[in-house]
């Protein structure tokens, strides 16, 4: 009797005592996710949340950027075309026009800045930052008022939020020549 290698006849069947588990092993995936999670938690700080990009605001673009001071005490101010929001709590102050024309609005803004500034510990007052997030199409008169009130309260560091664009000058030139 010749042995036919193409057929399974005569091949020994091995039966396992323990059946293979059909579940997908997710341990390696869990390891990767743990590493990513640790990395992300390290990089996400509360200050970043305070100056997060607002979807309904058009930011000006800049080539040069500065990093926010480490452990800075941040007071954000958001200036839209039609409203002004103060602090992390986004308290509505009024319209940008009110800042210039209404003395009471300016007084409220000053009181808010003062409260925020006074809450900062004495040894960290030099690191107090006022972060202005304003719409690119807003007249500078409103920005001047914010800066003026901020500096009068005691903020030594005033930041303007922008979006980084390395070659805006080239784009701007081509746009202006059209």
């Amino acid at each position, binding site marked *: 009797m010749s042995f036919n290698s193409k057929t399974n006849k005569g091949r020994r069947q091995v039966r396992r*005592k*323990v*059946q293979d588990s059909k*579940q997908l*092993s*997710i341990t390696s*995936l*869990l390891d990767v*996710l*743990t590493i*990513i*999670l640790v990395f*992300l*938690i390290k*990089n*996400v*700080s509360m200050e*970043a*949340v305070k*100056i*997060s*990009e607002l979807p309904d605001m058009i930011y*000006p*673009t*800049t*080539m*040069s*950027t*500065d*990093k*926010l001071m480490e452990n800075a005490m941040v007071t954000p101010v958001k200036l839209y075309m039609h409203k002004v929001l103060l602090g992390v709590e986004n308290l509505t102050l009024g319209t940008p026009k009110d800042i210039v024309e209404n003395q009471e609005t300016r007084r409220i803004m000053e009181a808010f800045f003062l409260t925020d500034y006074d809450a900062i510990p004495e040894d960290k007052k030099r690191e107090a930052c006022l*972060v202005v997030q*304003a*719409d*690119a*199409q*807003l*007249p*500078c*008169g409103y*920005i*001047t008022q914010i*800066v*003026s009130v*901020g*500096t*009068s309260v005691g903020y030594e*560091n*005033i*930041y*303007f*939020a*922008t*979006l*980084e664009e390395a070659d*805006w*000058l080239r784009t*701007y*030139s081509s746009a*202006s020549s059209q």
Partner: protein
Amino acid sequence: MAGYRRPYRPSEARQQKGQTAPQEPDLVPIMNLFLTIIPFLMMMITISVSLMALNFASDAGGGAGGSGGGGGNQDKILEIHLMLRQSESLELFPGMEIREPGSTIHKLPWLSENVYDFHSLNDLLARLKEKYSETTEIAVVVHPDVLYDTLIRTIDLCKTNGFVTVHYRSPQAMYAY
């Protein structure tokens, strides 16, 4: 038979269980948690990276130039005036005016409505930096009606050309149109 004692050994009952597959901890709830947290954290990372801050030394004390800021003799630093309105009597024109500490004034009128000549400003600032290589200070005098975008672009060009300490000023005299 007297004297025969069975040798000590673990209970036979414990050995009688049938062999089963090794038990793995249930990682599915942990995975669910991670997969929920990670997109949220990644979203926050993306936002914080795309948003940058531009800081500057401010001395806008409410319109009159003010004091403080970066220090130094601020009367003898370069000034960039950003203007929007046209006024013959007040010598205002839409565009930029760069004043050197002496008496030299460079005028850069805007190219079209709200399109400032930033290319010429960039070239001029590069030349001025060579001339005043020892100073890093510059003042930007911005009129109230100039757009915020124009101000930021001007400060940006100052910084990229080596004038890293930018003073923010508003015009010393108020004017009526």
